[in-house]
């Protein structure tokens, strides 16, 4: 039996395999297989301070062979209704740690939302926050929080000062300063870094002669972004050797998980592939186990960072 346990800061997880935010419905997936036996924690869909109807249709585009584009636009009920209803009913009932993904459009909004979470969280299952900084900062002309080390630092600081919960920052690749943003996040109090969020992309519908997405551009995810994600994980692991990294981007097979671990990730998230194969978690666990037995690996953590140059 291979040891799957991992540690992300103070948070101990039974498995390094998690889902990526916004790609996983625990209530439906748990009707197929036991979440507790196949995941280390559940990451929620990103919650915003207020209800949002999201973007107009068309919101998604399939990119055959490589992944997809999305511009869902964080549709959701807002933090109050989510904490009251969705989080306990859909996420908090699987005997797994829940990581609440949060986003906001200003530092003040981040701060107030975190204070609300701190006051209302059920600590029995809510065991961490993942800060989604791939959202426009209203005080920066709508540019992404995550594009600038200074803005990220302010957002992370605003969250950190309101909570003692473990804090992860989900980094965007849509900046030339990924490592600087990673460093700024850690300096502002982040316990771990999730790398990477979706890559900006667009697609033209040649039949209509128009962009396929109503919002023109969206986030590119799926197997085509894996090399980009691995690149960033390697760079961050090298620059910040003491900060746990949760690798995400294009994982669909056990070999992909191994790549991320060897690049320096202590855990991984599976996103887009959940859409085309909800049972992917069952196959990942089986195939990782088989690989480790064949290779004489007793603990997955033996592999973390072994490929770092």
């Amino acid at each position, binding site marked *: 039996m291979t040891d799957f346990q991992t540690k992300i800061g103070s948070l101990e997880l039974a498995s390094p395999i998690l889902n990526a935010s*916004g*790609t*996983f*419905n625990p*209530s*439906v*997936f748990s*009707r*197929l*297989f036991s979440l507790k036996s196949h995941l280390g924690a559940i990451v929620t869909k990103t919650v915003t*301070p*207020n*209800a*949002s*109807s*999201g*973007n*107009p*249709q*068309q*919101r*998604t585009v*399939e*990119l*055959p*062979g*490589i*992944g*997809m584009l*999305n511009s*869902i636009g964080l*549709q*959701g*009920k*807002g*933090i*109050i*209704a989510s904490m009251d209803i969705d989080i306990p009913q859909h996420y908090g009932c699987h005997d797994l740690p829940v990581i609440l993904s949060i986003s*906001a*459009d200003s530092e*003040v*909004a981040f*701060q*107030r*939302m975190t*204070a*609300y979470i701190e*006051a209302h969280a059920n600590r029995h299952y809510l065991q961490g926050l993942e800060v989604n900084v791939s959202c426009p900062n209203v005080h920066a002309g709508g540019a992404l929080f995550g594009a600038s080390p200074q803005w990220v630092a302010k957002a992370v600081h605003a969250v950190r000062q309101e909570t003692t919960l473990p804090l992860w920052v989900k980094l965007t690749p849509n900046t030339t300063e990924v490592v600087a943003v990673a460093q700024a996040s850690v300096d502002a109090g982040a316990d771990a870094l999730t790398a990477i969020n979706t890559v900006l992309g667009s697609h033209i519908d040649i039949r209509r002669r128009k962009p396929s997405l*109503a919002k023109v551009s969206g986030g590119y995810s*799926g*197997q085509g972004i894996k090399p980009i994600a691995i690149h960033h994980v390697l760079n961050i692991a090298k620059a910040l050797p003491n900060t746990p990294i949760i690798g995400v981007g294009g994982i*669909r097979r056990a070999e992909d998980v191994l790549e991320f671990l060897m690049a320096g990730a202590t855990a991984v998230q599976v996103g*887009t*592939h*959940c*859409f*085309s*194969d*909800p*049972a992917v978690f069952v196959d990942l666990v089986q195939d990782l186990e088989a690989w480790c037995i064949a290779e004489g690996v007793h603990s997955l953590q033996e592999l973390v960072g072994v490929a770092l140059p």
Partner: protein
Amino acid sequence: MSIPSMRTEALLDEFAVRVVFNTSSPTGLFHLRLAFESGRFHQKHHHVQAGQFLMLDVQDANGFRFRRPYSLMSWNAETQEGDIIYKVVGEGSKALSHWQAGQKSVALSSLGNAFPTVAGQNPRHTILLAGGVGLAPLILWAEEGRQKGWQDDDMPTLVFGVRSQAEAQSLLPHLARLIPLDKLLLCSDDGSLGFHGHVVACLEDQTPEELDHFEHAFVCGPTPMMNACVKTAPQLLPNANVYVSLENHMPCGTRACFGCVVGQAHGGLPLKVCEAGPVFEASQLLWGEKGLDTVGFAGACDAFPVFDTTTSAEGGV
């Protein structure tokens, strides 16, 4: 008139499926028969109710594709075989059209809600309005009725619109087995089969006496056809509750992605078709000029508590 209730969702599993046959008609309408082998996680047998859908894995050597939502047109619980009709409209159905007998894949099933029962009422007061491959879930509903013992007199009326006779040819024997000929109204865009015109024009051709008794209308077909049915129903089917079965672009089918949403007529956040549907009361949805309104739902958040993010004052909300 009581509003019939939607039936509850059947159990969910991932089924191994095998192609029994996959034939095309001269007009490009494909007829696929799948044998459902055992479920991967729980179930030996597959169950489905008319209106529900499955997510069929159509990935090939080219790698990633979303699964594709399909409704069964026919289901044989004994042989565990179900039929799908489809047209090649995109990458997924194109991949599907290359499948040969014996090909294996997987399908997540059954998902979504079903057409309402007409408990305590006679299904002969229900009219089915089908356009093209939208026929599938409606004709399964009629098939379920036959299995429950509905006689010719009990059967619903079916209006089935196609482009041309060739498109419907292979389906006619199946339809004729289920729906008595006096309740079967066929129409075609080119006039080669039945009434010359679309489904709504065919309804307009009937007398009010022939239509006034309908208490329920179930509609499934291309968006412009459903839109026309919904818009004209108050005049043509004045006593009918209208239900639509939507065929939205659906990336996951598992309530995870928020890619298939539709706006609500009376406000509130957009609804996931895979969760709240695919069968909806037509009046529940936000209809635009040409079909479902895809932009009008922006800002429909009034039902939720407001969280103050404008001040940095300490304390609650």
